[in-house]
C-alpha cells in the first residue's frame, strides 16, 4: 500500500514526536505515583514552555537547545510554587483526590485564558533554526527534528539516571512505594512532593519548548499533549516511568501512522479508542504498579 520508505519516514517522525510526548508523560506519571495527584493543568506547563521558547527565540535569538533549557529551569520553579500554593493546602483534607483534580482544572482554565488574553489567540510560528537535513536510505530528517529527538532522549536519560542512582531520585521512588515508610526513613516527603512536581512541570515545558518550532504555539496547544500524556500513562501503567517511556514512543509512532493512513483529523479518535481497548483488556497497563 505504502512504499516502505514512506512508512519508515512516518515511524521516524513518530519517534521524534514520541520523545517529547515521553517528557510530558513521564512527569505526569511521576506525580501520580509519588503524590497520587492527577494534574489536569499539565498541558498548561507544556504550553508555557512553548511560549517561553517562542519568546526566547524571537526576542533573544536563542537556539532551540537554549530555549528548552530556559523553559526547563523557569518552569521547574513555577511548578514548585504551583504545588506549594495550590496542592499542599489540600493534602490532609477528606476527599483530597477530588479536590486536587478540581483545583488543577481551575488552574488550567485560569492559565489558558490568561495566556489567551496576554499572548493573543493567534497561532505563532517559529522558523526552523537549523538549516539542512539528514538523509539516510531515502529517509529524510531535518536537523531541527533531529535536535528535538536528541535533546528529548538526553532529558529522558537524565531523568532515568536521577531516579535510579541519586539520593533524591531514590527518595522519590521510596515515597511512591511506601509513603509512611519513607517518612520513617527520614525523608522529607513534603519536599519530595514539590521537587517532583517542579520536575514534572520542567519536563512538560521542555517538551513544549522542543516542539514549538514544529507545531504552532497558541494558548490551547497544551490540550492535545495532555490527553496524549493521559493516554500514554494509562497505556504504560500509572506510576511507571518505564511504562511511560515505552508507551510514549509507541503511541507517538501509532499516531504518526494514523495520520498517514487515515487523516490528521481522526488521529485523536484512534488514540482514544486504542486506550479504551487497552483499559478494558488490561487495566493495569503495560507495567502498571497499581
Amino acid at each position, binding site marked *: 500500500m505504502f512504499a516502505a520508505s514512506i512508512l519508515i519516514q512516518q515511524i521516524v517522525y513518530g519517534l521524534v514526536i514520541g520523545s517529547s510526548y515521553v517528557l510530558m508523560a513521564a512527569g505526569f506519571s511521576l506525580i501520580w505515583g509519588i503524590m497520587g495527584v492527577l494534574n489536569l493543568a499539565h498541558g498548561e506547563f507544556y504550553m508555557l514552555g512553548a511560549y517561553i521558547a517562542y519568546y526566547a527565540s524571537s526576542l533573544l535569538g536563542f537556539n532551540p537547545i537554549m530555549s528548552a533549557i530556559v523553559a526547563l529551569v523557569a518552569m521547574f520553579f513555577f511548578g514548585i510554587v504551583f504545588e506549594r500554593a495550590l496542592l499542599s493546602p489540600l493534602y490532609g483534607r477528606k476527599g483530597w483526590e477530588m479536590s486536587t483534580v478540581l483545583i488543577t482544572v481551575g488552574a488550567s482554565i485560569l492559565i489558558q485564558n490568561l495566556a489567551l488574553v496576554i499572548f493573543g489567540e493567534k497561532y505563532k510560528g517559529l522558523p526552523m533554526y537549523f538549516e539542512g537535513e539528514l538523509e539516510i536510505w531515502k529517509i529524510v530528517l531535518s536537523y531541527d527534528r533531529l535536535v528535538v529527538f536528541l535533546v528529548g532522549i538526553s532529558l529522558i536519560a537524565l531523568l532515568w539516571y536521577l531516579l535510579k542512582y541519586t539520593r533524591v531520585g*531514590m527518595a522519590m521512588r521510596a515515597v511512591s512505594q511506601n509513603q509512611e515508610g*519513607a517518612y*520513617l526513613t527520614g525523608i522529607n516527603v513534603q519536599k519530595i512532593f514539590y521537587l517532583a512536581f517542579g520536575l514534572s512541570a520542567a519536563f512538560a515545558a521542555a517538551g513544549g519548548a522542543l516542539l514549538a518550532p514544529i507545531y504552532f504555539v497558541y494558548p490551547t496547544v497544551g490540550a492535545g499533549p495532555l490527553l496524549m500524556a493521559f493516554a500514554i500513562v494509562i497505556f504504560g501503567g500509572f506510576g511507571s516511568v518505564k511504562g511511560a517511556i515505552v508507551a510514549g514512543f509507541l503511541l507517538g509512532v501509532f499516531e504518526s501512522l494514523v495520520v498517514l493512513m487515515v487523516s490528521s483529523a481522526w488521529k485523536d479518535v484512534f488514540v482514544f479508542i486504542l486506550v479504551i481497548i487497552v483499559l478494558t483488556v488490561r487495566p493495569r497497563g503495560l507495567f502498571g504498579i497499581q
Partner: protein
Amino acid sequence: MYLLSADGLNCGYGHSQVLWDISFHVEEGGIVGIIGSNGAGKTTLLRTLSGLVPAQSGKIEFSGERIEQLSPHKIVERGLSQIPEGGGIFPYMTVLENLKLGAFLPWNWKRISQNLDHVFQLFPGLEDRKSQMAGTLSGGERQMLGIGKGLMSAPKLLLIDEPSSGLAPKLVLRVFDNIKEIQKHNVTILLIEQNVQYCLNMASRAYVLENGRIVLEGTSDELIGHEHVRKAYLGI
C-alpha cells in the same frame, strides 16, 4: 533524664480518640516493652511518637526536647527511628537500595559503606540477597531487612512494632537475638509486642496497654508474676 518520655498523651484520628492519658519513660540503654493485644492502640502510639499522626494533647520528650509537634523526618533526624510492622520496606527496590535508603540522612549517607558493612556483618543473609527485590522476601527476611534498615539510620532509640508478628517461633528467636545484638551497640529499644512472653524475655521493664490506657507498669519479673498479666495474657 530519660531518653524518651511521654506525659498525658492523648492520641487518635480526627474525632475518634484511641489513647488516653499515656505516660511512660525510657532510659538510655536497655530495652523497654509495651504489651498490648490487638486493638489496644499500640500502633497508634508508635505512629504518634514518630510524628505520623499528630497528638491530640500531651507531651513527648526526646533527649530533653519536645517533639510532639515535629514532622516525622525531623524526628528521625534527632535519632528516633521506627521499624513499623512488616519492616517498612520498599517493595519494588532491591535489598541493597532499601538499606541505602535507611541511611538517607545526610550525615549517614556519607558513612554509608561503613554502615553497610556493619549491617551485613550482623545479617549475612541480607548480603546474599542484596540484589533481590524487597517485595519478594519472606516474612522473616523482611523483618531482618527492616531492622537492618533501621540500623542504617544510626539511631539513639529504635521503636520496634511487633517484630514477631507472622513469624515462626524459630525465626522469632533469631529476630530477638538480633535485637539484643543491636542493643549492645548503644541503641536503646522500645519494643511493642502482643506476645507477652517474648516481650518480657527481652525487656527489663514494661508497660501494659489495654483499651487505650496504660494499666500496669513494672520490671519484667514483677509483671510476669502479676496476677492480671498471668490471667489475661498468659492464660494461667
